[in-house]
């Protein structure tokens, strides 16, 4: 598959059609999933209606993590096979992942308010998501700080890979920390086994988020490739101008 996307031109041709298709798929899945999530699915016996926030919070958490893993793979390909497209893919996924991580934190806080009575609860998973969010910020800050695009791509790839290796360690240490300082038994966010009637809207919403994220990522990759072409052409123009 990687070789199919090998050269940017074929990628541009393919993504020209894939981007709108994915966007349409996302819209369709949202149309299908939202009524279930908001109306037809049953309220939680403890939390009542607020469990509906789960259909936004959980997909955001999944894809914030999923995108970082995908960035890790793209970074590996970029470092080992020096693929131009892999750099562009990792760079295009980062903002989407960062926004999803932020969305996950905010919806977690909104969900926690009625459930726990506070805007922010240092729950193990929310804390790990906060660390992941700062990792995204660091990744984007590194890209912004380095002028030479090629060097920035490789350095960011190293940072992303080391971050990926550390995710399980950070996750383990935060869980260990949470159990160490375990406050009174607190209702875990969505901890109870998910009622099957809730599962289908959750999966549909997750699919909708996935298509939306993929479409936005492809859009980002297209603009990054156009940007490189534009800057290179302008550079050549400036140099050859009499």
């Amino acid at each position, binding site marked *: 598959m990687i070789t199919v996307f090998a050269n940017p031109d074929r990628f541009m041709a393919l993504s020209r059609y894939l981007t709108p298709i994915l966007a349409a798929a996302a819209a369709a899945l949202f149309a299908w999933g939202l009524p279930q999530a908001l109306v037809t699915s049953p309220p939680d016996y403890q939390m009542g209606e607020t469990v509906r926030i789960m259909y936004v919070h959980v997909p955001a958490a999944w894809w914030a993590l999923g995108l970082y893993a995908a960035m890790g793979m793209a970074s590996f390909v970029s*470092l080992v096979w020096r693929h131009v497209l892999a750099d562009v893919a990792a760079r295009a996924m980062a903002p989407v992942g960062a926004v999803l991580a932020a969305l996950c934190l905010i919806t977690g806080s909104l969900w926690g308010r009625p459930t726990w009575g506070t805007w922010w609860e240092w729950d193990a998973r929310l804390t790990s998501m906060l*660390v*992941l969010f*700062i*990792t995204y*910020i*660091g990744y984007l*800050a*590194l890209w912004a*700080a*380095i002028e030479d695009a090629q*060097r920035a791509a*490789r*350095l960011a790839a*190293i*940072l992303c*890979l*080391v*971050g990926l*290796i*550390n995710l399980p*360690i*950070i996750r*383990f*240490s*935060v869980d*260990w*920390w949470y159990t*160490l300082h375990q406050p009174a038994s607190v209702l875990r966010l969505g901890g109870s086994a998910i009622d099957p009637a809730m599962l289908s809207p959750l999966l549909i919403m997750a699919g909708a988020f996935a298509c939306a994220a993929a479409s936005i990522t492809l859009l980002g990759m297209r603009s990054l490739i156009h940007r490189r072409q534009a800057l290179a052409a302008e550079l050549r123009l400036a140099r050859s101008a009499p």
Partner: protein
Amino acid sequence: MIRALMSVYRRDVALAWAGGGGAAAPLGFYVGVVLLLPLAMGPERALIAAAGPPLLWVAGALSVLMTLERLFQADLEDASLDQLLLAAAPLELAAFAKGAALWTALGLPMALVGGIASLTLQTPPAAAPIIALGLAVGMAGFISIGLLGAALAAGVRRGGVLIAVLVLPFFAPPIIFGAAAAAAASAGEAPFEGAFQLLGACCLFYAALGPIAAAAALRLQAD
């Protein structure tokens, strides 16, 4: 090869100490931050005893962050990084040697000062050596992963803030285990149990991962 690594180590320790007062600035910063706690929270003993050990770790992490910026930036600017690349030793070990030099020149003194400062934070005197030892291990972990941050931001003007935001997520595990170990020590529990072992494991892992990743980044900086 060992001679080459020892030469990098000795030169960096000499440079760390020679630069005007040597370790005085980071140590001063460290003590200053520790001082802020009682000023902010009032002299109430129980409060300070609870917040003391963890603060030692937060202040230690911040002080190490301050020393990371000049670690590779100076070498990149005056082209002595090229010498490390051409040396009779792999760049990974040269990075490790630079980290070890920073640890000896600044990490250990900070751990010592941390142990002494823990006395002022109402922790029982018996706990001080254990806290100092924990800090020494933690500093090694912070510096090792800090090598990567310093290497990534070596080419960036005023890269200090960038290094901080790059490296802080990786500081989470050592802070968690280190502060827990310090709290356990000040609570009088058995010194080298649970948290301390996890701290050691995490810092050993960073001591291996940091130099390798930093060397990869340095090769890119020199490209």
